[in-house]
C-alpha cells in the first residue's frame, strides 16, 4: 500500500473529516435524519482513514497520486 496523498491533501481531508463528523455529532437535532447522519459519518470516517494512512483507495484505482508534486 503505497502512499499516494500529498500532505496538503491529507490536511484537507482531515479538516473535512473532522468537521463532518463533528457536525453529525453536535448538530443538535438539526438533521433529524438517520440515513443522512450515517452517510455523513461514513464520509467523514473515510476522510479520516485516508488522513491516517495517507492512502486513498479511489486514487489507487484511478491511478492518481498527489504524493509527488505534479509536473
Amino acid at each position, binding site marked *: 500500500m503505497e502512499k499516494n496523498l500529498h500532505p496538503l491533501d491529507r490536511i484537507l481531508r482531515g479538516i473535512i473529516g473532522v468537521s463532518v463528523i463533528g457536525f453529525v455529532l453536535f448538530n443538535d437535532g438539526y438533521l433529524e*435524519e438517520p440515513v*443522512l447522519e450515517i452517510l*455523513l459519518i461514513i464520509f467523514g470516517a473515510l476522510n479520516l482513514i485516508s488522513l491516517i494512512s495517507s492512502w486513498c483507495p*479511489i486514487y489507487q*484505482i*484511478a*491511478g492518481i497520486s498527489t504524493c509527488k508534486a505534479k509536473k
Partner: protein
Amino acid sequence: MPPLLELQRDKFFRFRLMIICFGVAFLVSAIYVIVSYRLATDLGIKAEQVSLHRQTMLLHAELVEADNDPQERLTELVELIYLNDHIGVQKLYIEAYGKDFDWSLTHNITPQQTSTLKNRMENKVTQHHHSAMASGTDTLDGELFLWQVVEGQDYKIITIEVAESLNVALNLVAKRLSITSIIVFWIAAWMAILLSSWMSRRVQSKNNALAKLATYDQLTGLPNRLYLIDMMQKNMPETPKSDRLTFKKSSLKKEVQGCLFVIDLDKFKEVNDAFGHSAGDELLRKVSRRLSVTLGEQYTLARIGGDEFIVWANDIEIKQATNLAKELVAVCNEPVMINQLAVNTGASIGVSHYPTHATDIESLILCADIAMYEAKQARTGWGLFNVRDTEINRQRLRLRADLSEALLEQKIHLYYQPKVMLHTGKIIGVEALARWHHPTDGVLYPGSFIDIIEQSGRVQEFGRYVVRTAIMQLAEWQRQGAFTPIAINLSPYNLLDLGLLNFTLQLLDDFNVSPDMLEIELVESSTSINIEQISYRINKFKEAGIKLAIDDFGTGMSSLSYISNLNVDLIKIDRSFIDGVDKDPKKQAIIFTAVTLAQSFDTKLLAEGIETKAQADLLMQMGCRYGQGYYYAKPMQAKQMKNILLTKAVLPIK
C-alpha cells in the same frame, strides 16, 4: 508533420468527463430537490386539510351538543385548538351561524382578505359535488389559505386558515435536501474521478496500440519512418529560429550531433524472386534482428520500407560512424539461412552527419540515400555523404526538370563533325552530335545530359527526335546538292524501341532519302548489355540498308566474337588510343591490331579524336584510312557544315 505521439494523450479528456459527471449530478440533485419539495408540501397540505376538516366537524358537533350558550363554548374551543402557544396558527378566520346564532372570529386576517376569500369560496362551494362538506385551497397575497365548510342541520361553520406546510417543507428542504445534495455531489465527484481515469486508461491503451501500429513495422517489429522522424524531431533543434531563441540555453548545453545511416540490402530482390516473398520476409526479419543486436539500445533502428533500414545514432562523430558502418556492412555480409541455403545478402550503407551535411530530417535522409546509392554503384559497401555530390545532383535534377521544355521547343540541336579520308582529306560523311542550348547553363555536351534522358524515361522520344532531325537534314542537303551520309548515336535503350525501325524507314521514305545515307553508331559497351535482343534488332536495321558503326572501339566490354556476328560497316577506334599514339608503341600496337581486324572483317576503320598532323600521318602509315577530329574540323552547326559540303572542300582547311 503533426507530432504523432500527441495522439496518445488527450489532456482534456479526463477534465471533460469530470465536468459531465458533475453536470449529471447537479441535474439529478436539482430534480430530486424540486420533486421532494413539492411532494413534502403536497403531503403537508393534504394532512392540514384533513385535520382542518376534522376540527371543523368537531366544532360543529360541539355546537349541536352545546346546551346553553354555544357561543361561549365555541370561543373556548377555538382558543384551545388554534390560538394556543405551542401549535397555534398564524392566520385564522372562523364563522359559525345558525338559527338565532351568528359568530365569527378573525385572527391576523384583514377583513378585505376575508371577504375576497369568502367570495371565491362561495363560487367553489356551488361547484363542489358535496357542498355540505366542501373544502379547498386558495392563494392570496402570496400565501396559501385552506378553507373548510361544514354545514349541518342547524349550523354552518366556515374555517379559513393559512397553510403551514410550505414553510415547514422549505425548512426541511434547506436542512436535509441540501445535505443530501452535498453527499450526492461527493459521490459524483469520486465517480467522476474513477470513471474518467478508467475510461481514459482504456482510451489510452487503445491509442497506444494505434500509435504502435502506426509507428512500428509489423514484419520486423522495428520502428518505422514515422517513429523515426518523430523521435529525430525531438532530438535535433533544426530550425534556426528556435536556435536563436534558445541561444543561451543551447550554448550551455552540449552541442547536438548525430549520424544517420541508410541501409539497403543488395540481394533482397533476388531472394524475393528466387525463393518467394515469405523467404524475403524471413530474410528481412533475420537481418533486422541481427542489426538490432549489433546496434544495441544506444541507437535507433527503423525499417522505412522494402529492404531499406535507417539507423539514427545520436551523439556520434563521423569517425565513429564510419567504424559503425563498416561493422554493419560486415554483419550484413554474414550469410543468412533461407530454406536451408546460406544466402549472402550484402548491404550498402550511406552515412550522413547532423548538422554538417543537413539540418533537417528529410535532407539528412536524402544525403544518406545519395551516399548509399553511390556506395551501391561503386560496390564499396558503405559511403559517407559528400557535399560535392549534391551539387551535381541538384544540377541533374534541374536539367531533368528542363528536359521536357527542351524537347518540346527543340532546344537540343544536332551539330555535325566531318569524317574524312585521311589521304585526300575528302569528307566521306558527318557524325551528328547533340548539343543542348540551355537557357541558363549555355551549350551542354551529351556527357552531361544523355544519362538524364536515359533515366527520365524519355529516351525513346529523344531517339526518334534525333532520327527525324537527321533524316530531315539529309533531305535538305540533298535538295541543295550535298550527298553526305549522317551518322547518329543511338543508346541501347533506343534499340529496345520496337517501333523505331519502322519509324525510321517511314521517314526515309517520306523524305525520299536512301537508307544507306543514314548510319547508326553503337557504343560498344552499350551493345553488350543485352546481346541477344539487340543484335537481332541491329541486324534488322542492317537488312533495311542502314549502315552500322561500332563507336568507341577498344573500350567497353563487348567480345570480339560479338563484333564478328554484327557485321558492321565501320569500326571507330576510341580517341584514347589516338591521343599520344605517336609516342606510345603500345597504342600503336593496338591500332595495328585494329587495322588487321578491320581488314579481316572487310570493314572500314576510322580513328577518332585526331588532333595533330603527326597523328594523322602515323595513322595513314599504319593503314588506317579514315579519321575524324579537331585537326580536321570541330563539330559545327548545320549551316556551316552545308557550306563546307557544297564547296566540296578538302579538310583540313589551311
